[in-house]
Structures are given as structure tokens and as C-alpha cells.
């Protein structure tokens, strides 16, 4: 069967599941007792197994299968969870990643997995495997759609269930309501299922068990079980679970139950009809396949809300939309000229609709920064091990959204900075202890929105940056002169470490510090229109703060007019606007300045700087836009303000590079081009 069309989906989904495994494993390391996490990992591994077996990647399937066995044993308390197991599982996930990567790159996904498989087998054998299997059999019955392991028993089990019904087991429909303020709903669900598992067998649950465990339900769910217990006993037992508000146990008739069965059978059957090619595999472990299909189909229900779209298509959409905006501008113009009421209304309506459309298109390009952040916990864990340091990575604001183009570029610089923080920032546990700090260092990765920018901060509580060391190094490398060095502020000194050819670590390590990293970081961030600054306190830690534009393509500007030309000034640089009387302008050293809120602000006449042809005479009042770059301010003198506007930032193309004080252009509603002023170039 031709699998190519599914390959892309397979790779994407595999990556997602592996990512989920990674995240959950790290979570598990922190809370080794939390079985819910093991369940999560198990589920990911299981889906992965099913998919890879279907796609014919034997090694991948073999390894996930073995991993699944171990996880299953853990969650059934057959194996005591310990860090060694975690390491082996991590190793297995590494192997899986390598294989998926190889498949993504067009390889066959083959890899020698015997090492990982062997280790996993050993772990599993640490306890009686027979017991583990027997136990999992019950587990499979409890939460059918997910627990598919060892389901060779499943079919057998299924008939047993039917027989047991005929043998006079009572069937109950149990509605459990959790308290409104219940915090760990998944945990409660688990406990309830554990009780149900003891008193009987679960046939069906609504919502599905995996949805329950993901807390995708309000406060109430319904479970159908068969049991020989009395109705009241069941209720009492369930009420013992804390945070349970109410339990309703209703016996239901066999007829109703049969209907359930029929439905259930249909669910399991349909996927098989769709994929007859799987018949062969199914002979080996038929029930397993069924389960697989069920998991994927239920997973699809939840993921139905998103689709993957190639970013190029979004770009095309965006370009087409921009043209539409321009035509809209023309239509507006025409409708004004013709002064036809009906045309007016239609055009106005269209304007509103296109406005909404614009928001949607822009938002479509926004991606949570999480997609970059989520690979860091794993990286930090590994690095900390390599460096023999104890490091806790905290991630704040992973849901912050950034334009896709920025997201694509920001990954590598962040990797550099985090490596840097781990290697040079955080000290070894011994040193930290000696300095009276907790042994475990903390690295905080934080993202947040502020105005038109996104800030990403990497903060460590390590040794901080030594001004003297940096200066000495910079001097010896000839990056600064002594005179310049003496007058530099601390922050300026810290920024020297971003200069090329700089490395303060006495010892070059594998992790970072060949002196090539940080200057690349700086140039990448600057190429994205962002800035990076460093704060540091010796002995207490450093903060690397990256400021990025929210999006590379849309910015808010203040449109201004200078004579007959229009210039856009990015709102992000503007402090405020003012109207200044000519008489208020002072002269200081050949520089016209104004006293603005107690500060002396130099005036820059854009008319002169941009050599604008003069057609009208000067007014008595100047319109001034106060802009800033860092701590410095300047007043840009324009003729008039047109207003604030969201515009699409466009480059001037390859031919016009390095135009002074112009960072790009935008197309206005009337189809004309307005240039965007680069305030940073104007303030020295």
C-alpha cells in the first residue's frame, strides 16, 4: 500500500507524541509518584507504536512496544519507579527521535535498538512479567480506549464480559459528579476507576476515558460497569473518594446494554473497513489493532479543531489580501468622488469585513512561543548532567504568541543563551554551596508581551558577569580602547560579551564558549528587528533580555506628512507627539533643542534630513514626534500628523539596500508607498 500520502502526517504526529513523551518524562522526574503522568506517556508511546507498525517501521514499533511494557508495569506498581528507569526511557525516546528524524529525512527509519530494548527488558524483568501482564489485563478493561497493551487477552476478555452479563452480573450506570472546586480532576477520575476496577468491570464511559484523564469534562461523567456488588455499596465506595460531590448508581436493563454493545462493536469495526490492508498484521494481534484505531479516532476528535497549513500559503494569502486592501482604498476613493449613497454603504461594509479579515489573517501567523520553548527542558536536563550542575529550568509565558517568521529564527539564539547561562552563569553545586546559595541553580525563561514587542528573558541566579574580567578580556582582544573602557557603563561592558571574538570562560568547554556563539545571537536578533540587553549583578546572576517585534510584517505606525510626502514612524519608538511654538525652540551648540518636560531634547528636521522638496511655507508651530532609542530622545519635526495606522512592513527590495534612516516601506490605502523612518539610525 502506498503510504507516502500518510508519511507527512505520520512524521508530524510522531514528533508531537515524542515531544509529549519528553515533556511528561520531565514532569515525571519531578513527581515520580504521579501515575497520571505515566499514563500520558503510555498513551503517547502507544499511539506511536500503532502508527509506526501501520507504516511498517518495525524498529520503531519494537522499541515503543518495549517502552510501553515498562511504562505499563510502572503504572501498575509492578516496578518501582526510579531515576535509572527514567534514564533508560529517555534513551529510548532519543532512539525514537533519531528514527523519526531519519524517516523525515527520507531514510528507512532503521536503527539498532537492541541496546534500549535490552535495557527496557531488564527493567521489566526486574519484576515478574507474568504478574505485570495479568495486571495490565485488568487495566485494559478499566480504561479500554487507551490501555491496549497485552491486549492479546482482550478478545477473550470481551467474550468473558458478555458471558458474565448472561451469568447475572448486574449492570450499572454510574454518574459521578466531582466538586466544583476539585483541582485534580484527573487524579479523582483515576481513583474512581481504581475502585470500579475492584468491584467489577467497566464497559463504557462517557466522555471517553482519555478525555476524562485530560480533564476534558465539566464535573460530571458517566460510567457503565458490570458488577455483582449491590447498588448502594458501589455508591458508598465511590463516595469515599475525596472531592466527589455526588454519585448516582442506576441499574440498567440488558436490552439497553446490548445497544451499547452494538454501538461499541461498530466503532471498533469501521476503521477496519477503511483500511483493509491491515488484515495481515491484524492476524498477529488483532485486538491490539482495533484498540489502536480507537485511540487514533478519539484523538482525532480532539485535534479536529486545527489543521496544518503551509506557511507559504499563508504568505500568499497575506499578499493577496494586501492587494485587496489597496483596491479597497481605491474603491473608497471612488465612492467618495461619486457620492452615491448605495455605493457608500456597500464600500463601507466591505471595509469592515476586510478589516476583520485582516485581523484573522494576521492572527493566523501567530504561533505560541511554546513551540520553541518546549525543547529546552530536555536540553537543560542533559546539559546539567553533562556539566555536573543542578539546574531547575522555569518556563513562564510559553503561551505568548509571536509571528511565525520570528519563531523560526529565534530558536538557535535562545539555545545559545541558555547554554551560556548553564555553562558560564550557574556555578557548580560546590561553589554555590560555598557562596551560601542553594545547590540547585535556577534558570528562568520568560516570555511576555509589552506594547508592540515581545520580550524573552533568560535569567539565571549564577555568578553574574564580572565587569573587570570582561574589560580586561576586551582590552586584550582589542575590542575596546582603554579610554573608551573607562567611561563605559556596566551595561555597555556586559554587552561586550556579545561582540565577535570574545569569550570570557577561561576554559573552553563543549557546551558553549568558543566565542562564536554570542555575537551570532546578537546579529540574528538584530536581523529580526530586535535588540538584546544584559543586566547582571556579580554573584547574583544575569538577565539576558531580548526584545522582538511582535510580527515582522505588521507594525503600528504614526503617519506623518512632510510637505507633500508621507512618512511612517513606528509607534514602538514614539514616546509622544507635541505641537511646539517656534518661539520655544532654543539653540545649543548649533543644535536646535526644545525643553520637553524638563529635558533638553534635540530637534531633527526630517524635511532637511530627507531632503524633501519644499512646496509650502513653514508654520508658526512645529509638529514634533518625540522618539527614543534606549535612554536617548529626539524630536522629529514633521509638518502634520495624519494618524495612527497598522501597516504592512515591506522591504525596499534587493536593489535599494542601506537607505539612510529608512527601514522599509508600506503601501497605504490609496496604493501609494510610504517610507518607514528608522528612528534608531537618527539618534546617535
Amino acid at each position, binding site marked *: 500500500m502506498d503510504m507516502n500520502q500518510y508519511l507527512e502526517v505520520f512524521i508530524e504526529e510522531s514528533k508531537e507524541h515524542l515531544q509529549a513523551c519528553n515533556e511528561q518524562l520531565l514532569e515525571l522526574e519531578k513527581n515520580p509518584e504521579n501515575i497520571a503522568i505515566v499514563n500520558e506517556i503510555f498513551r503517547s508511546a502507544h499511539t506511536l507504536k500503532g502508527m509506526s507498525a501501520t507504516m511498517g517501521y518495525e524498529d520503531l514499533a519494537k522499541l515503543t512496544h518495549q517502552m510501553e511494557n515498562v511504562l505499563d508495569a510502572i503504572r501498575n506498581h509492578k516496578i518501582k519507579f526510579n531515576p535509572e528507569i527514567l534514564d533508560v526511557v529517555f534513551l529510548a525516546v532519543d532512539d525514537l527521535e533519531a528514527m523519526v528524524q531519519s524517516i523525515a529525512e527520507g531514510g528507512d527509519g532503521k536503527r539498532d535498538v537492541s541496546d534500549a530494548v535490552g535495557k527496557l527488558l531488564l527493567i521489566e524483568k526486574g519484576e515478574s512479567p507474568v504478574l505485570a501482564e495479568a495486571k495490565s489485563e485488568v487495566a485494559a478493561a478499566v480504561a479500554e480506549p487507551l490501555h491496549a497493551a497485552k491486549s492479546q487477552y482482550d478478545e477473550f476478555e470481551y467474550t468473558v464480559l458478555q458471558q458474565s452479563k448472561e451469568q447475572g452480573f448486574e449492570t450499572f450506570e454510574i454518574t459521578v459528579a466531582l466538586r466544583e472546586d476539585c483541582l485534580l480532576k484527573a487524579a479523582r477520575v483515576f481513583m474512581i476507576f481504581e475502585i470500579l476496577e475492584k468491584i467489577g468491570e467497566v464497559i463504557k464511559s462517557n466522555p471517553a476515558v482519555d478525555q476524562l484523564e485530560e480533564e476534558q469534562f465539566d464535573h460530571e461523567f458517566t460510567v457503565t460497569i458490570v458488577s455483582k456488588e449491590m447498588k448502594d455499596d458501589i455508591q458508598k465506595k465511590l463516595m469515599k473518594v475525596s472531592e466527589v460531590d455526588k454519585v448516582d448508581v442506576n441499574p440498567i436493563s440488558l436490552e439497553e446494554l446490548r445497544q451499547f454493545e452494538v454501538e461499541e462493536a461498530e466503532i471498533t469495526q469501521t476503521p477496519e473497513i477503511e483500511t483493509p490492508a491491515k488484515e495481515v498484521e491484524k492476524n498477529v494481534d488483532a485486538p491490539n489493532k482495533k484498540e489502536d484505531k480507537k485511540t487514533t479516532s478519539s484523538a482525532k476528535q480532539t485535534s479536529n479543531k486545527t489543521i496544518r497549513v503551509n506557511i507559504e500559503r499563508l504568505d500568499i494569502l497575506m*499578499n493577496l489580501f*494586501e*492587494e485587496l486592501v*489597496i483596491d479597497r482604498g481605491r474603491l473608497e476613493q471612488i465612492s467618495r468622488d461619486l457620492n452615491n449613497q448605495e455605493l457608500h454603504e456597500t464600500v463601507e461594509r466591505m471595509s469592515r469585513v476586510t478589516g476583520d479579515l485582516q485581523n484573522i489573517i494576521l492572527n493566523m501567523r501567530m504561533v505560541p512561543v511554546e513551540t520553541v520553548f518546549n525543547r529546552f527542558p530536555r536540553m537543560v536536563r542533559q546539559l546539567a548532567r553533562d556539566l555536573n550542575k543542578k539546574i531547575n529550568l522555569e518556563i513562564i509565558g510559553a503561551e505568548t504568541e509571536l509571528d511565525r517568521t520570528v519563531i523560526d529564527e529565534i530558536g538557535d539564539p535562545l539555545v545559545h543563551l541558555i547554554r551560556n547561562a548553564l555553562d558560564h552563569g550557574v556555578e557548580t553545586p560546590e561553589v554555590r554551596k560555598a557562596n551560601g546559595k542553594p545547590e540547585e541553580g535556577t534558570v528562568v525563561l520568560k516570555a511576555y508581551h509589552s506594547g508592540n514587542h515581545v520580550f524573552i528573558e533568560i535569567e539565571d541566579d549564577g555568578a553574574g558577569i564580572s565587569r573587570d574580567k570582561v574589560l580586561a578580556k576586551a582590552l586584550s582582544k582589542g575590542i575596546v580602547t582603554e579610554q573608551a573602557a573607562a567611561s563605559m557603563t556596566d551595561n555597555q561592558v556586559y554587552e561586550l560579551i556579545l561582540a565577535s571574538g570574545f569569550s570570557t570562560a577561561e576554559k573552553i568547554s563543549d557546551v558553549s564558549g568558543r566565542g562564536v556563539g554570542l555575537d551570532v545571537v546578537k546579529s540574528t536578533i538584530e536581523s529580526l528587528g530586535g535588540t538584546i540587553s544584559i543586566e547582571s549583578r556579580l554573584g547574583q546572576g544575569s538577565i539576558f533580555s531580548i526584545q522582538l517585534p511582535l510580527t515582522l510584517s505588521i507594525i503600528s505606525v504614526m503617519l506623518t506628512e512632510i510637505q507633500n*510626502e*508621507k512618512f511612517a514612524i513606528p509607534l514602538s519608538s514614539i514616546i509622544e507627539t507635541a505641537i511646539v511654538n517656534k518661539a520655544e525652540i532654543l539653540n545649543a551648540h548649533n543644535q536646535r533643542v526644545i525643553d520637553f518636560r524638563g529635558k533638553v531634547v534635540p530637534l531633527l528636521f526630517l524635511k532637511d*534630513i*530627507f*531632503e*524633501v522638496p519644499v512646496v509650502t511655507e513653514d508654520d508658526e508651530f512645529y509638529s514634533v514626534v518625540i522618539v527614543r532609542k534606549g535612554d536617548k530622545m529626539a524630536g522629529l519635526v514633521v509638518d502634520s500628523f495624519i494618524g495612527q495606522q497598522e501597516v504592512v512592513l*515591506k*522591504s*525596499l*527590495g*534587493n*536593489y*535599494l*539596500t542601506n*537607505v*539612510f*534612516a*529608512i527601514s522599509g*516601506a508600506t*503601501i497605504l490605502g490609496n*496604493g*501609494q*508607498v*510610504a*517610507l518607514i523612518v528608522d528612528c534608531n539610525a537618527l539618534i546617535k
Partner: protein
Amino acid sequence: MADTLAADIKLIVFQLKDKEYAIPVNHVQGIEKVEHITRVPRTEKFIKGVINLRGVITPIIDLRSRFGIEEENFTDSTRVIIVSVNDLEVGFIVDLANDVIDIPVASIEPPPEVVGVKEVEYINGVAKIGKRLLILIDLEMILDTESFSSSRSEG
């Protein structure tokens, strides 16, 4: 261009002042009427600015000015020829663009060596078709940003 294998070469013919010039059609993206040009400050004199060409910001070069011919106001027949060479897309302002012709490659001769004519550096060759003399311009030379400095000192 001269080494094109085909025996014929298709050219777009345009006028500057009283001379006829030509560029190979495969470099031409389109011919537009002159619309609002936004001046870009502090650039070369012959760069008239940028226009919005269907959503793409396109720089506009006045070929008269580029060749050192005195500039004139735009007329109804003034056109912008959009050309694209090695990733660069620019528009040329010309007096008139009115012809597409095929000429045999063999009819292209090397540029005459006349001293003191500025445009000579941008000429690839000349072609004589009947009474008409077509000047084939070297797009790469015209768009070569390196030559800015020299042209500025001369201009």
C-alpha cells in the same frame, strides 16, 4: 545575451529622447504606466523612488538620468518597464515603449567605441534593422550598485 543559441532574439524596444534601445524580453516582467512614485531620500539622483507594483515595493530608475540625458516631465506615453535580473526587480522609466521585435542574433554588433559617451558602459551591442538602430543595453551593468560611486562623482 549575444550567446543565445536561438537564431532569433526577442527584444522590447523603447525610446529615450530620439534613440531606440532594446532589452531582451525574457528579462521584462511587464510594462506599466507611471503612477505615483514615492521618493526615497538620500539615494542616487537617477533613482526616482519606489512604486507599489501589485503589492511589491519596486524601485524606479529614470533611464534618461542614468544615461546622462537631460530629464523631462512625464507624458502620456511615458512608461515603466519592469525588469528582473538576478533577484533584482526594478522599473525603468522610458519615454515610450511600443515595440516587440525578433532580430537575428547575428545582426548584433559590438558597441561602437566612442569616447566620452556616458551610456557606452551600459551597452551590450547595437543592432541594425533596416533604417533603425537599436541599442542593446546591459542590464547587469545598469543595476550594478557598485558603479554608484563612480556615476555620482561624474554626475
